């Protein structure tokens, strides 16, 4: 885990022992850019880093300055003389799920049946909130790929809770579900009552969602049973990895009251899951030129002072939360960050911190 050095400038530098970095935060705060910059900065220091996004939009490709689209197979984007490498990839729900099924299925026939199941196909088109789980699965997969020694995961935006950390548990909880047990006939040996109840249930659900879907669901859960042990093991391993000191959690926020409130909610959610953000990155902060406070009044100066005042006010709860963690702020550029220049700007601020005394903290981070 990272510690904020006493008196040293705040930074979101990645420790040598860190193997995976999870960036979390609400939408619109520049999480993808920060993820790209973290991986890029690590590559410069000699790490073989891969950054993976779950966002199907071109954001990561834009942030990394890649002309085309990224695919689910990692692409090498930069090589440094110290051995450092930067790779990028974009999560494809279908590819990740298929790989998961293939690696856990007891035989080829089960894998094929699963891939053809309509429920499965629907689950893997990204509609059903499975992206959180997939991001974690991808993280685990890449963390065990010898080509990389650092994986940075740009997680899907979390609005209020940390769905992503709960994702493995949510999937395995399904197996503890009594209805699931009824449908797969696990309790069928117990009493005949169960099978009668199951039949009744299936009929009623069928009236609402159509008979075909119930048949598919029964088949799906039946097939899933064969994969269950593998999924459980994987969920446990991922949970262990995330709470170990090999993992680093970077929370990204912007200096607005609503995103700070969401960030604090996320931090609380993280803490209840034995996770802490190791660094908080406040992105898109207005620039604070030296002497702004005492400059003669003008339209531009007055506007900037008001914006700065507004940001300080929005940031106050985060400072007061007293996380004992580095809070790194990144000044916004007038234009968009979509080229190497912009990425370097973010990298520079991630590793050195904002040059001015942001939010009156004066380098003290406790």
């Amino acid at each position, binding site marked *: 885990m990272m510690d904020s050095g006493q008196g040293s400038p705040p930074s979101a530098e990645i420790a040598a022992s860190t193997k995976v970095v999870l960036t979390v935060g609400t*939408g619109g705060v520049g999480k993808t850019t920060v993820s790209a910059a973290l991986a890029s900065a690590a590559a410069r220091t000699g790490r073989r880093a891969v950054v993976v996004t779950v966002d199907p939009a071109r954001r990561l490709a834009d942030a990394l300055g890649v002309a085309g689209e990224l695919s689910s197979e990692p692409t090498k984007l930069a090589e440094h003389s110290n051995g450092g490498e930067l790779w990028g990839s974009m999560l494809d729900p279908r590819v990740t799920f298929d790989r998961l099924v293939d690696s856990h299925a007891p035989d080829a026939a089960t894998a094929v049946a699963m891939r053809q199941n309509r*429920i499965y196909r629907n689950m893997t088109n990204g509609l059903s909130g499975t992206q959180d789980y997939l991001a974690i699965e991808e993280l685990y997969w890449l963390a065990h790929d010898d080509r990389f020694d650092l994986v940075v995961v740009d997680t899907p935006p979390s609005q209020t809770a940390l769905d992503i950390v709960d994702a493995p548990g949510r999937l395995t909880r399904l197996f503890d579900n009594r209805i699931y047990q009824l449908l797969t006939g696990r309790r069928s040996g117990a009493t005949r009552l169960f099978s009668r109840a199951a039949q009744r249930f299936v009929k009623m659900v069928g009236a*609402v969602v159509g008979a*075909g879907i119930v048949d598919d669901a029964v088949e799906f859960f039946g097939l899933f049973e064969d994969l269950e042990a593998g999924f459980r093991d994987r969920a446990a391993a991922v949970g262990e990895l995330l709470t170990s000191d090999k993992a680093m959690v970077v929370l990204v926020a*912007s200096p607005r009251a609503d995103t700070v409130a969401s960030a604090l909610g996320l931090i609380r959610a993280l803490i209840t899951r034995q996770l802490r953000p190791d660094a908080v990155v406040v992105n898109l902060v207005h620039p604070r030129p*030296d002497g702004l406070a005492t400059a*003669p009044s003008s339209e*531009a100066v007055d506007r900037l002072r008001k914006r700065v005042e507004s940001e300080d006010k929005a940031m106050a709860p985060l400072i007061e939360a007293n996380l004992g963690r580095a809070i790194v702020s990144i000044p916004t550029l007038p234009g968009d960050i979509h080229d190497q220049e912009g990425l370097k700007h973010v990298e520079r601020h991630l590793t050195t911190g904002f040059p001015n005394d942001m939010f009156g903290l004066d380098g003290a981070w406790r």
Partner: protein
Amino acid sequence: MNRTQFVAASQVVIVAGKGGVGKTTVSAAAALATADEGQEVLAVEVDGTGALRRLLGCPDAGQEPVPCPLRPTSVSVASIDPSTALSRYLADHGLGRLGGRLARTGMLDLVATATPGIRDLVVLGRLRQMAEHHPDKIVIVDAPAAGHALAFLRTPRDILDTVDGGRIADQAQLGVEFLADHDRSSVTLVTLPQETPVNELVETAFAIEDELGVALGPVIVNSIEPPLTEPPPVDEPGRAAHDFFKQRAAAEAVQLVRMETELPLPWFALTRADGPIDRQLRLEQLARSLRSANSK
């Protein structure tokens, strides 16, 4: 019915956009502005986060509309919680008696897992019902957060492709018809004057119109940097501040020109707030801006 300019010519207006573009604030401002144009308005949030109802001063609003204290006679607020809506739907369709026991055993999770999108579909069904129960009101909907807006709008079609028969298929059919009926529903997209949000706006707009046949209302561009009117100050920090805003306005102008070229839709501009400001004051400001703005 007299329609306002800044929301589309339909009874239900779904306000959608990526996370961080200010969709909820714009929804609330549009609700107030529409009311001030003499319309009765029902503002609805559908993601259960409570952001819209808090902003409109009714933190306790549920599925039944309650009057908004900011416009008690003309705006009411409702919140549809996806999970509650689903259990209500199932209870209404004969699963109620078994409901208690089955809910405890996780039936809702199972139905939701077996039929991805069913929650969204049920939410859409509730919206349709609300619009029918309040035919004289404009229904302004703060669409689900983040990238889910498109998935939300696609849900009825996806479900029609998945299920064969059953009440859900009927619901999905009604949902498809509702979304494709330009008198009943339309989508207003919110974006920021920046490269990535504009890219995403254009992609989403074409997907919504071409793929789903859903009507698009005017685009609302939020947080535009107001132009500077004074010449640059001579002092160093003053010049730095001036340059920053000038550069930002220039970068935004490039994106807005690109948006106009790539997306032939009228749009409205809302400017960035200057400093710390009470949220409700800001909301009233934005509502006034929407009413006085001319579409571009």
